């Protein structure tokens, strides 16, 4: 049975956000008997529908954010605002970041205007955490769970890739059940993965860790609770979390410790808005790195019209990967690597993403062949740049009275070179099957948001230590994608869950030693 905790109870750990990171920490701590209050900005999702447009309306964070640089001004990133966070929207792809990408300075150190660091976590520890995360999420393709079957879009990617000389083509590891397990159905190939998964074959923070935490006696979920500030006491520790509740009233929840997991835009936003005389640059921001080093992967959407029908909308959207280019090669003219991941779109999304802004006779005749389309996403490693960052708008405030976040991002020249190379290789895949119409769309608003409160070996290089504990405030943790020291070329959710599992262990151990 779920508990209700008093706002003045200073024995609770307050977790901000119920996405992959926040839900995992909540589950781990509450199941160990530690009191947890999880403040979630969004509400519960009442019903999942197999309708992309309607679910977009239900799952998306629409509060005002301002994009600058290369980002769309009115919708710079794509994240979720609901119980379960962005995991309702994610595709379920759960690759591990390969070992070499935990030390990106080896290949990125020569890039100008960058702030690339290596990870402070030893890889052997990451491997153990990855194993636990895969088991917790029931990742198909790992630990004896069979892989998902490839769908039509995958078979096009596989056949074209082979003809183009590629070898590492695979459906990949997916947090989508290939068999019934974890109380969740096996995948029925509905094809609406990013719309929530109506049969719950896809792991989400809502259907697994939050559901598990709610079964304990030690967890309270407070939906529609929008955090605006974290207060610190005279001892320099986080003491209270200020939030706006569903009725619009300001509330305060005392805290023994605070874990911020509000996505890489809102986690630094909350810290920057929690400035005080002790922390004039924002909470835990003595390094100046809070909000900086924002990374989102080097993306490009590649769509192609094949000579015969594909029906790429049938089945799992993202279960097809090409890993031939993950290991970088300076001979290609850029540093770092990238993966290809198959994607599929409903008609309205395809029209927007294949040739953004296009219209008229020619484009309509191309969309007429919707069922002949195949598509993939280029996903490359994004080097950290200090100028790519989240800041607070000087004057503009949102409906909660909180400064609107400004997200600034400009592609590094290395990333532009990588994208051009990757697009040419992608064209070869589809051309090998006879496609003469291959389109390169610009990067979509990112769902992979990383690095804005990164882990580092040294306090001057980042915001958090190897456990995600902030260097400046001993009982303040960051528990989401903001933590990632580098982006790698892999979807970040598995890594977020793995880091949250490690962090929860560390918090439990610190509490046992009465250090927290």
């Amino acid at each position, binding site marked *: 049975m779920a508990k209700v905790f008093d706002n003045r109870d200073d024995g609770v750990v307050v977790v901000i956000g119920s996405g992959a990171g926040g839900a995992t920490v909540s589950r781990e701590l509450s199941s160990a008997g530690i009191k947890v209050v999880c403040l979630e900005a969004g509400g519960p999702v009442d019903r999942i*529908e*197999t*309708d992309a*447009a309607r679910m977009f309306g239900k799952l998306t964070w629409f509060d005002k954010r301002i994009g600058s640089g290369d980002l769309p001004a009115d919708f710079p990133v794509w994240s979720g605002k609901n119980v379960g966070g962005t995991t309702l929207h994610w595709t379920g792809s759960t690759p591990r970041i390969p070992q070499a990408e935990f030390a990106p300075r080896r290949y990125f150190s020569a890039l100008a205007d960058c702030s690339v660091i290596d990870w402070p976590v030893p890889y052997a520890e990451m491997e153990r955490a990855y194993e636990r995360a895969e088991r917790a999420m029931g990742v198909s393709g790992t630990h004896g769970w069979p892989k998902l*079957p*490839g*769908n*039509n879009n*995958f*078979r*096009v990617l596989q*056949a074209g890739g082979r003809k183009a000389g590629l070898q590492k083509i695979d459906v990949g590891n997916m947090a989508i059940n290939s068999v019934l397990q974890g109380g969740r159905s096996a*995948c*029925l*190939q*509905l*094809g*609406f993965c990013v719309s929530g998964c*109506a*049969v719950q074959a896809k792991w989400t923070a809502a259907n697994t860790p939050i559901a598990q935490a709610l079964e304990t006696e030690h967890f309270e979920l407070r939906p529609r609770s929008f955090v605006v500030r974290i207060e610190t006491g005279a001892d320099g520790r986080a003491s209270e979390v200020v939030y706006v509740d569903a009725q619009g009233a300001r509330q305060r929840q005392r805290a023994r410790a605070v874990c911020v997991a509000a996505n890489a835009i809102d986690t630094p936003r909350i810290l920057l808005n929690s400035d005080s005389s002790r922390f004039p640059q924002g909470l835990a921001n003595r390094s100046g790195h809070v909000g900086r080093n924002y990374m989102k992967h080097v993306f490009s959407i590649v769509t192609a019209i094949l*000579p*015969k*029908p*594909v*029906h790429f*909308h*049938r*089945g799992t959207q993202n279960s097809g990967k090409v890993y031939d280019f993950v290991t970088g090669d300076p001979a290609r003219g850029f540093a770092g690597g990238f993966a290809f991941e198959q994607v599929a779109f*409903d*008609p*309205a999304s395809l*029209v*927007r993403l294949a040739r953004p*802004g296009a*219209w*008229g*006779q020619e*484009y*309509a005749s191309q*969309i*007429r*062949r*919707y*069922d*002949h389309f195949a598509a993939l996403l280029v996903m490359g490693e994004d080097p950290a740049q200090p100028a790519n960052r989240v800041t607070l708008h000087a004057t503009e405030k949102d409906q909660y009275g909180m400064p609107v976040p400004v997200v600034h991002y400009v592609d590094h020249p290395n990333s532009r070179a990588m994208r051009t190379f990757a697009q040419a290789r992608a064209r070869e895949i589809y051309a090998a*099957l006879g496609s003469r119409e291959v389109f390169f769309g610009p990067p979509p608003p990112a769902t992979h948001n990383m690095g804005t409160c990164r882990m580092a070996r040294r306090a001057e290089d980042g915001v958090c230590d190897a456990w995600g504990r902030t260097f400046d405030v001993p009982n303040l943790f960051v528990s989401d994608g903001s933590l990632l020291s580098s982006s790698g070329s892999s979807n970040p959710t598995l890594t977020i869950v793995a880091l949250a599992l490690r962090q929860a262990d560390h918090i439990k151990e610190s509490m046992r030693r009465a250090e927290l």
Partner: protein
Amino acid sequence: MRRSWARRAFIDLMMKAPLLLSVAPAGLAACRTAGPGAIAARQRACVKRIVYLMFPHPEVGDEPYERAVVGIFDLVGRRPDLAALIGQGLEKLDGGQPGAWIALDEAGQVARLREIETSPFFRSVYQATIDHLYNDERVWSHIGYEGSSFEKGGYLGRGFDDIDWL
């Protein structure tokens, strides 16, 4: 499901503005008439033509385009800023002479639209057009999108891996 939702919106609008809809089919002629009801009808006829020229699928007939226009004006009814944007945009398209644009031949209409394709007016109609036209089940079946398979047990037994020409 979507169709019934669209129909509800359609009926909603009919209840609110019976005159407006009864004038709308007058099309081109209405574009040259004045008066508040006629202005609304003229706007609808012009927007419908723009929607068609953006994404012409003549085989689907008139109905999806009519539904898209109903959807767009439903939104316009709730968003005064958009109503102003569309009103001003159409005036500019006509170059100050009501009815001038729609009187052009197709090539002329398209050429004029190309000139304004980066304007906020055009971009707004463009985004709304994609939302409505490409979420219309008649258009879906025409382009080969099958929509939800949940009710039928998913695509697992319905061709998710049936490609046979590779």
